[in-house]
């Protein structure tokens, strides 16, 4: 029973991720006062990609796309099956690093610039998540997710850490103002530009899984009552989409500076408050 729920979540995660991505696009459209695509649109996209004629530039560029997907699956599996939270963060960073390795593997200007920016995404997101993990250790005494999932309503003792997580979510999900690596109209998709058809499908799928992982991270703070968890996830994602629709893209340096000037101090203050016993 204990193993059944996470395992089924893992198996259904592409489905959940696709519906999540479709909901994002629909919400985006409604915010812009238009109709928008159907919620199952990402699945149409995925199947369309799978049936295109394969064209490629070199073979390892393509292999890295599959490696990116595999690493993201490993990160999600570690998260759902209750592994070590630090490992989840590092495996997620590893999958982004593999994508940027693949993007570096072609001699295209947009791809190379996008790959460097993708690495800066790791720089912006990973430290904050590790500090949140340190805060979690202070509150629950462990890094193991199987025990953290047993705790109730962590938000009460870690509100600032949750705010820091929300502040870092645009950089994680590649939404404005921090979508520097996938800057459409600027570098036309960044690291993904040279992928097409069946070789683009794993990257597309990995994006869905990343959204499921983010939903899991948000859910971690609001466990105990499934209704509250779902409300929290919906409100947070709506907020992130609203920020996406109303801000412009900042430069990569601003992204790194912003996480360092806003998110990390938030977590540090929370740590101090937890240590002192106020929260």
């Amino acid at each position, binding site marked *: 029973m204990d193993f059944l729920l996470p395992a089924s979540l893992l198996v259904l995660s592409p489905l959940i991720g696709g519906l999540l991505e479709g909901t994002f696009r629909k919400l985006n459209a409604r915010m812009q006062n238009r109709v928008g695509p159907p919620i199952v649109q990402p699945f149409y996209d995925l199947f369309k990609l799978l049936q295109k*004629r*394969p*064209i*490629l*530039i*070199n*073979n*390892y560029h*393509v*292999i*890295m796309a599959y*490696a990116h997907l*595999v*690493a993201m699956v*490993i990160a999600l599996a*570690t998260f759902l099956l209750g*592994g*070590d939270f*630090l*490992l989840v963060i*590092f*495996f997620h*960073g*590893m999958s982004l*690093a593999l994508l*940027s*390795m693949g993007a*570096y*593997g*072609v*001699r*295209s200007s*947009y*791809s*190379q610039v996008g*790959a*460097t920016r993708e*690495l*800066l995404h*790791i*720089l912006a997101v*990973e*430290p904050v998540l*590790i*500090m949140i*993990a*340190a805060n979690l*250790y202070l509150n629950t*005494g*462990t*890094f*193991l997710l199987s025990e953290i999932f047993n705790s109730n309503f962590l938000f009460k003792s870690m509100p600032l850490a949750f705010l820091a997580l929300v502040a870092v979510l645009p950089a994680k999900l590649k939404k404005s103002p921090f979508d520097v690596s996938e800057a459409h109209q600027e570098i*036309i998709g960044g690291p993904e*530009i*040279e992928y097409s058809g069946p070789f683009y499908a794993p990257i597309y799928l990995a994006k869905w899984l990343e959204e499921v992982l983010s939903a899991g991270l948000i859910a971690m703070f609001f466990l105990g009552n499934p209704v509250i968890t779902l409300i929290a996830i919906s409100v947070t994602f709506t907020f992130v989409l609203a920020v996406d629709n109303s801000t412009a893209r900042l430069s990569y*340096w601003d992204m790194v500076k912003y996480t360092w000037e806003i998110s*990390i101090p938030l977590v*540090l203050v929370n*740590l101090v408050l937890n*240590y002192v016993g106020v929260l």
Partner: protein
Amino acid sequence: MMNDGAMIPISLVLIPVLFSLLNLAIPSHKARKIVTYIGGGVIALLSFLLWLKTPIQVSLHPNVNSLIILLDYALIFYFLKEGIVYKHRTIVSLTTVQLVLLSILVAYFHTESTYFIVDRLSAVMALIVGTVGSTIAVYSTRYMEEGEDLNRENRFLSVIFLFLGAMNALVFSDNLEWIFFFYECTTFTSYYLIGYRRDELSIRNSLLALWMNQIGGIAILLSAISSAYIHGTILVQELIKTGALLPISLIVIGAMVKSAQVPFQSWLLGAMVAPTPVSALLHSSTMVKIGPYLVFRVSDVMDGTTLGSVVALAGAFTFTSALVMALSQIEFKRLLAYSTIASLGAMILCGGIGTPLAITAGITLLVFHAVSKAFLFLEAGISEKEFHAKTLEELFGLITKGPITAWMITFGAIAMALPPFGMFIGKWILIQAAVISKQYPTLFLLVFGSAVSVIVYMKLIGRVLAGRETERPRKSESLSPTYLITTLVCVVAIAILTLFYTSFANSVIEKVTEDIIHKSLIESGIREKGLGLILNAGRIDSWQLLLLFSLAFALPILGYFHTWRKADLVYEYTCGEPIEPNLGAYYFLDKLNDEHLSRIFNPIASVFLLLILLMGVL
């Protein structure tokens, strides 16, 4: 303490000296090659034997003490002569100070104990020196055949073997006077080998290395004098038992100089003008590991004290600042040098925290860094000699000219930065240790550094991997057998150590940790489960390790061998224009120029040094 196997430490010191003299005497290059192969094999075998037979205590003849003091004075006078010949005032003054301090030590605080004490920490260091050192010595015989003067090669090989012997003797010594002598011996070998090419740049950098390392020697001498004056002993094991802080802090400062921590990093960066085997052996795998070795030796005393926290903070500061400065490096070997400095900072950090978990992380980092970094330097040497590529710009698109080397460099960089390899596992355990010990400022710097290290290595991979299917060469480049054997040995070592990390941890690392903290490890809570590891607060499972391991190995193998036959080949998107893009890499030079940064970082690091000294006094 058992006494059988007493010959092994002595032979591990004397046999390298013997091979050093042999290499000096033999005039033919081919004969020297054979002698090096044999010597390397013998030393490696002996170091394995040593590990099996520890702990060992060897008591030597009392005359050895006098011999060492005599040789010590000879060495100091040699340095004085070099300082006078090159009109270098700093060297002359530092050497004079060393002369005075040594004389004080010998006159007032001399001791008659002459022991070689080999516990598991020394044994694992000797193992690294024996295996990695022999591999690099063998590699250098082939390296020196291209573009270097083969007539002077005998001195090169003999000094390398001399270094192996001196390094072994240092890790076996218990007496601070002897540690000083062998410390200065390694300084001498470093000085000679950096200046080996005898051009102006090399000589200048060798003098820089000399005087900076002499500062470390002075620190060790001061530690010996203070330890003898305050506590009446210059033996390290007894010093640890007394728990004195001032000699310990001075030893730590000496260690930091030898490991080129910030603010002493310039000598290691300048040392990169030496031939690459020198950089691989001395300045990444073995000599600079004296720093972490000394810190681990005294870490038991620092556990829980403020001195320990300050040392940890200093190590973390070096870790982060060196990696940030590595982002803007254009030369390949300088990038690897900065990364070495950072990893050594991480190891000193582990020693500073001092809990069993941290020490486990430190020994993991020590072993894996030695093998991985030596491997990367060997590849740097191959690209320097075969492809004439010293900078990252020249390395661009190496995969079309030399796919084997390109994939080896990729594998080496993956082994340094990504899961499941040992550097990653060490970093993971270290972060756990830092969080559990509530060292939050250290954690703050550590997480930044670990993210930057991923960027540094991915950028390196990116330069060599950029290529096209249409430009795949018909045959890969042909590397000489020596190059292939030495690099494949490193790859196999990394693979086996990573896959069987848990049993390696249980059989080797745990025992070393026990010897360092003088307690048994039941309460540190590190247990193995299949191929995975269970810690008190975290866990890595076998399926994760296996999946990641297959992923990491599938990448170079599939990348090298596999082709998609049914796919069309096209070119990159250049907006339809038929141009060939001219691509450089981001070096962040507007924000992260390392000269500007070192002007900011050096003063901060000096403050840390002063704090360390202060914590020792109080």
